């Protein structure tokens, strides 16, 4: 199987090729885990898209948006604050990218720095969200707007929170020597997950703050 798999290598898969050179068994295991992780992200993506479908459906079929509650039209969200908070989250995607690149180039000190920056920015985003929740002026149970907003951003916030925990664990593992310069699938998965959370936010930001 190892030999058969190696025959299918293509040019763009150079990093995987390096693993296989070092340890063909690890190469295959990595492929399997990577595919599984991508599928996990795909099904997670459907989780968000189903709720987004519900939001779009409710919004399109509503007679007025934002809806009325008790005779008053609800306010729009504060786009400028959310935009700043988004920059914090997207910035953390950039720092995570640098963290992984530094690990690949065996620069552990810089890796630690970038990873800590990522975690700090992630926590910053969560604090921003907490602030947003406290000032947004709508409730979860009052209208469909609140229901969609709190459910979707709450789920996303939970993903960010889980991501912060995940990255912290990865950082501890990396410093304990769980990963090496050629075997670091956990870090790849963590980076993928973090980018995935960023991409979801792009959609949520557009749907709630721009549309």
């Amino acid at each position, binding site marked *: 199987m190892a030999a058969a798999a190696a025959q299918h290598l293509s040019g763009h898969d150079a990093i995987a090729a390096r693993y296989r050179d070092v340890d063909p068994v690890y190469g295959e295991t990595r492929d399997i885990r990577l*595919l*599984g992780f991508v*599928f996990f992200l795909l099904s997670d993506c459907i989780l968000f898209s189903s*709720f987004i*479908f519900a939001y779009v459906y409710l919004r399109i079929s509503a007679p007025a948006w934002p809806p009325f509650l008790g005779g008053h039209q609800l306010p729009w969200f504060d786009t400028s604050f959310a935009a700043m908070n988004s920059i914090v989250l997207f910035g953390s995607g950039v720092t995570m990218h640098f963290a992984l690149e530094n690990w690949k180039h065996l620069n552990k000190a810089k890796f630690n720095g970038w990873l800590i920056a990522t975690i700090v920015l992630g926590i910053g985003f969560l604090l921003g969200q907490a602030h947003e929740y406290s000032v947004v002026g709508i409730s979860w149970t009052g209208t469909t707007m609140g*229901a969609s907003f709190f*459910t979707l951003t709450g789920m996303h916030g939970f993903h960010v929170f889980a991501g912060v925990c995940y990255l912290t664990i990865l950082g501890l593992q990396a410093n304990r020597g769980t990963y090496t310069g050629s075997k670091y699938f956990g870090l790849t998965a963590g980076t993928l997950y973090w980018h995935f959370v960023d991409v979801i936010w792009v959609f949520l930001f557009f749907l709630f703050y721009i549309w």
Partner: protein
Amino acid sequence: MQAGTSTTHEAHDAHDHIHPPPEGFVRKYVFSLDHKVIGFQYFFTGLLIMFIAGSFAELVRLQLTDPNGAIMSHTAYNEMFSMHGTAMVWLVLIPLVTGALGNFVMPLQIGARDVAFPWLNMASFWILPVAALILFSSMLWGGPHAGWTEYPPISLADGTAGALWCLAIFTIGISSTMTGLNFMVTIMKMRAPGMTWTRMPLFIWATFATALMNMVATVALSVAVGALFLEHVFSVPFFDPARGGSVVLYQHMFWFYSHPAVYIFIIPAFGVVSEVLPTFARKPIFGYKMIAFSSMAISILAFTVWMHHMFPSGIAPWLQLPFMILTYAIGIPTGIKIFSWMATIWGGRIHFTSSMLYALGFLITFTFGGLSGIFLASVPVDLHMHGTVFVVGHFHYVVAGGAVMGFLAAVPYWYPKATGRMLNERLAQLGFWLFFIGLNGTFLPMHWLGLEGMPRRTATYAGFAKAFPDAVFWNQFETAFSFLMAAAIGLLAFNVIWSLRHGTLAGINPWGARTLEWTISSPPPYYNFKKIPQVFDRPYNFDQPLPYRNTDNELDEFPEFGRVLMPIPQPVGAGA
């Protein structure tokens, strides 16, 4: 995850390395990582819940022997049919056809030592009994009353029981998603060398198509019941019209999953039939590529037809048309399959084992269920038939006459491989006739009762019986025949347990079948393949030697390989 990946790691290691066997009762039989043991666990759990959910169905049928309701109150009746549907769909059919069959057969047929993520597999299984406990415990709070679909706003009246229902379905949804993910990766990455996509057995194609739907659609279901749960517990207004929510939205979200769910039951049954028919007709499957292609076509089209459940339920008329047309489009790949199976048995040399009887019965009952589906897919005709017992008849022909018949064909077929002994053939054949006659007697009269005007989910039908007095006779007729089906399932359970001890020894390949699992001993060792085999052709060419190299044993030690024989008892694990 760590231990899980290390197992796959070894499963893919150089061919001589096999990890040490599991030790201790708990490791071997309870929290086992072995896909075969997990398959048994799914099988017995599913069968047990089938008895409970089946007895609910019998209570429903007994109630309808009298037009005024024979045995219970309306509320109790509503609870019974809701629990029957819920338990059968999520806790019986999906665990049996994907969990039990997929787990036991799929890694063996692709020449793998286990699935990609054994730990995930174990977790998927253990979610099932938890979800079952949550679901059945909801009966302590009065149980769900709104049918297996639990449409709001009526389901919101169920209170705690409704919330527990949502929780149970959410939980089992997670299990299905994980199984789907696991099987996708296993099939894509862990096939034996040389087993290209077009050399896979058709059961693997079916499992792949099913896993795709499990992975994608089940999440949408989790969202639908998750939102319903939020509405139950926190009063979040997704579906409350007074606060701007939409009750039709739930139906969209629910059916986006639940239509593919029907194919999640039926496509593994297609796979089973595609294995059983060639084996017992001693003929290659006819049109391999078209059958494989049509499985994938059905699983992709399955995502595009959900609104045909909602034609009269509040969608715009112009939206009905694309969904009617797409639903008809599914008729084409399904037709291709039926005709290909007919062509497979044409010119064969057919051995009437119980598996084959079930597969042949499947061809008839499933075709009937498919054709009544064509009626329901047409918007105008559906406006008459929607919500009647015609629909009940239709989907029971598809589910019981399709998915369950396929499953019942699979049990005697793979039982020898799983246990090393043959299922008692005489009892299994008796079971087939009971089931086949009971199925038709129970569900055929529903078609004309529905067309005459009998709505489904009615605890009494005195008003309807006044206009159509024959309804009483036909309902009693259905109840009588439904007990034949129950007897068939009881007989199967007895047979499965009795044959564990008393069955004839099976040997490696009792049916003369040609897929990879029949090249290793029965039951297979925990590592499945001592050496990972190499595959150089499709498995169905009966005039050729088996298309495998590097199997456990040299081929010529087993003269039955590559030839076809009726069952010849052999010592267990001969030569393995």
